[in-house]
Each structure stands twice: as C-alpha cells, then as structure tokens.
C-alpha cells in the first residue's frame, strides 16, 4: 500500500517534471526539471529494488552530465522566440518520433511481456541480496563481450572528442610547467652595479 502510494506520487512528479522540461520558458528551468526527472526516476528504481542503477543514475546524470548542461545553458544567451518558431516547423517530425518510441515500448512490453504478470505485486528479494554483486556477476560473465564493446566505443568517443577540440592554433604559447618549476633565480635575475637611476637622498622630515 505504502509502496503503491509512493509509486503513484513519484510517477506524478516524474511526468510533471518531464513536461516541465519541454514546456518551461526559461532553459535553466528546463534543465532543472530534467534534474528533478532524474531524481524521481531514481526513486522509482529504488522502489523496484534496483538500488545500484538508481544511485548510479543520480551520480552520473545528476552529478556530472546535468552540471555541464546547466553550465552551458547558463552561459548561452538563448532566444526563446526563435526556438519556438523552430518547434512548429519540426512538429511533424517530433510527433512521428514520439509515436515510434511509444509503439516500440508497447511492442516490447505488451507483446513480449517478459513473462511478467502485471496484476501481481513484485516479489520482494531477500534482505541480503546484493543488487550490485548480481549486476557485476552478469556483466563480467554472460555479457562480457557487449560490455567490453561498449567500453571500446566510449574510448573511441573520448579520443574523437579530444582530437576534434584539440587543434593546434598558430601563435599559441602553452606553458611548460616542468620548465617553469625548474627555473632558478640565477636564470632570471641579474644584479648590475652602477646602472639605473641614482637613489634620491631621503626627504627631510617636516618637524
């Protein structure tokens, strides 16, 4: 009963937050709604005892990805009117994609069903069941090749991102920190006798 109440509460917040992402006028509010959506979906995952996924969702998406999103959104000077004009132009495509996604989800959950009886409550796992361990065991045995493949794809993406943004511009003066640290006083300062302005005698005091 309590679980169901929590489920409907979190689901309502999740839907409201997801609507907020696309409805909010201020892009910063959109980004913050997305953060709320991530948090509530993490809470929903906690309800089905997927605590590892829930915490990682908060850690990766809220803690890192959305921080950078907010960072960029706050820096940009976004003209909302211009974007709104774009929305009507691409509305057809948007509806098409939305229906495609819904159709795919229905196909997966309705027709295949995974043998889950939705009318039954969820079977609770024993208290000493470690979700994290179970996930690790499956990832490193049964799904080790897809897992490694995903890792390679990410590595390639990292290298691509760095090579795309690291361009050698002419006239750049990068710092060599090792060289800076190795500098000694003798390399920079030279004491020369007898050159330079003569120092004035100390001004006489008034009293």
């Amino acid at each position, binding site marked *: 009963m309590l679980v169901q109440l929590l489920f409907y509460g979190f689901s309502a917040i999740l839907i409201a937050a997801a609507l907020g992402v696309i409805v909010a006028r201020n892009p910063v509010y959109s980004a913050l709604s997305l*953060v709320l959506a991530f948090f509530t979906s993490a809470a929903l995952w906690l309800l089905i005892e997927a605590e590892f996924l829930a915490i990682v969702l908060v850690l990766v998406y809220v803690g890192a990805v959305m*921080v*950078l999103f907010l960072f960029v959104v706050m820096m940009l000077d976004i003209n909302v009117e211009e974007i709104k004009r774009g929305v009507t132009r691409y509305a057809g495509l948007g509806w098409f994609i939305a229906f495609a996604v819904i159709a795919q989800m229905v196909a997966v959950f309705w027709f295949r069903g995974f043998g889950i009886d939705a009318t039954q409550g969820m079977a609770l796992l024993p208290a000493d069941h*470690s979700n994290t361990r179970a996930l690790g065991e499956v990832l490193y045995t049964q799904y080790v090749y897809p897992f490694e493949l995903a890792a390679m794809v990410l590595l390639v993406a990292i290298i691509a991102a760095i090579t795309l943004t690291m361009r050698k511009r002419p006239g750049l003066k990068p710092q060599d920190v090792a060289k800076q640290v190795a500098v000694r006083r003798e390399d920079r300062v030279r004491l020369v006798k007898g050159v330079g302005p003569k120092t004035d005698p100390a001004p006489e005091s008034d009293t």
Partner: protein
Amino acid sequence: MTDFILNTWAALPSYARSTFWILVVTVTVILSVAFTTLWERKVIGWMQLRKGPNRVGSIFGLVPGIFQPFADVIKLLLKEVVIPSASNKWLFRIAPAITLIPAFAAWAVVPLDPNLVIADIDAGLLYVLSLTSVGVYGVILAGWAANSKYAFLGAMRSAAQVVAYEIAMGFALVGVVMAAGTLNLGDIVRAQAGGSSNWFVIWLFPLFVVYLISGVAETNRAPFDVAEGESEIVAGFHVEYSGIAFALFFLAEYANMILISALTAVFFLGGWLSPFEGLLGSSHPLGEPGFHWLFAKLFFFLTCFMWYRATFPRYRYDQIMRLGWKILIPVTLVWIVVLGVMVHLQVGPWAA
C-alpha cells in the same frame, strides 16, 4: 529506570529509532560545525602568532572565546536577508538549502561505530559519491540566480572544478573498492581490521593523497577556493547572500569538511578501528574499536583542512584544472593497475 528506557527503546518501531539517530547525528553535526569555526579561527590564529577569538565567554576562566560561534549565529540570524531585486527570487532562496541537504544526507551511511550506522546499505560508497556531487547544484544556482557577474563567475569556476575533481575522487575510491571487495562502508572498515598495517593508507598511499587533495577541492576550501576568491571575485557565488542565507552556505561548507574528514578516516584509516589493534589485540582497552578512534582521525583531518588554509596561497584557476586532469587522474589510473597486480599476486593484506 534504565531497564524501562531500554525496554521502551526496543519496543519502538524501527523507523522511530532511525529517526532518533538521524536527529542525533544532524544536531551533532550542526554543533560540530559551530565549534569547528571556532577551532579554525583558533588554529589559524596560533599559526599566525595571534590568540584567535577570546572575548566571548569562558568556562571557569578556561577556553576563552568558547561561546563565539553562538554569538556569530545570533548575529547572522538577526541580520536582514537581502534579496536582490533583479535576481531569480525562487532559486535564490532555495539554493542554500540545496547545498545543505546533501551535506547532511550523506551522513546516513557513514559507520560511526561497529554497530551504529543509520542506513547499512550495500551501495553506500556510491550513495556518498552521488550526494557529494549533487552539492554543487546549490553553488551553481546561487551564482546564477543572484544575477551578478561575480557570483556567476564563482559558480562557473566551481562547476568545472567539482566535475574535474569528482573523477579523480571516484577513481581513488575505485581503488578502495578493489581492495575491500565491497561498496558497503562498514564492510570497508572491517576489511582493514587486524592492525594498522592493514589500513588502506599504506597499500593505497597514492590514492589516499589523491583523495585528500580532491576532498579539499570538492569542498571548495583553500587553496582550491577559487569559487569564492575574495581577492578576485569578491566572494564568488555567495556575494549577494546575507544573514542566515549566507550562514547556510557556511554551514554546508563546514559540514562537508567534517564529512570528507570522516570519509577519509573510513576509507583509508580504518574508521572506528584502533591503531593499536595489531599490537595489543582487540580486547585490550587501547585496542578496542569504537567511535573515539573515528573521532580522533576525523579531528586530525579536520585540523589539516585548517592547516592547508593557513599555509597555502590560492591556486590559479588553470593550474587547478591541470592538477586535476593531468596529474591526479593519471596517478589514480596507474595505481589501480598496480593494485590489480598486488591483489592478483596476493601481496600484503590480500594474502590468502
């Protein structure tokens, strides 16, 4: 009388008992923050050959200045909270709370004692990491909502810095997880049992140093306090905050300091384990595990935070980024490989 109390305690439902401990921990952390501010001013005062605060209150002529934190709190409470007219009022008001909540919520999984932890969850380490990474939202929102250039600069600096050091911190903790074989903080402490030679600080020393440095950077403390940077951007993200709203940021910063100190002790120095356990055995009064050992270690790291502040000048922003990305992250990666080899060859504490 004691029987009656114990019986009533045992008869209480578990959520009532958890609520009680949550209250105890929260109030303790808030009080500790108050006295940490005093301790910081005292320590830095002594390091600079001053006396530090010594006017407000004393207990029988001892510890002069003991009530200084309460005087400060009353002053901040009575001050007007100025809300800039061009600011985003709602976010401006909510930002201090967003900074504060994760700083307290993370205490739920910190094991204080062999038997005392509010929530003994298996993914405790991940929980701590995710909460400390959420704390930066308060700083970013405060900087943006204030509608001030200085505050915004501070927020941007903080966002980039925290995201960069989170990676180094996460990798350092990957080493801890590899060594302990669990994400549960209590089990991480138990994996270090059997004397101080088993503490991870010895076997994971480079990761310990990386964790300590990124802990200072995550809390935006000197020498990594470019988000505030008084000499460059006035007071950074909280330049527009006054009164109790400012005090909440202050509270969150110090609560985070205490949290990072406690976590360093738990991850690398055996938490509530005694340093003499290996020499005297765990039944000897000095070898017995208990909260006092965690407190001693926590206090040491907390004092280190103040020591850094008194010693180091503020880092330049590009050098902070260089240190995080080009030095700390490669160090952790190399040591994770070394650690893997050590575990595989069953060196030291991993001997079968």
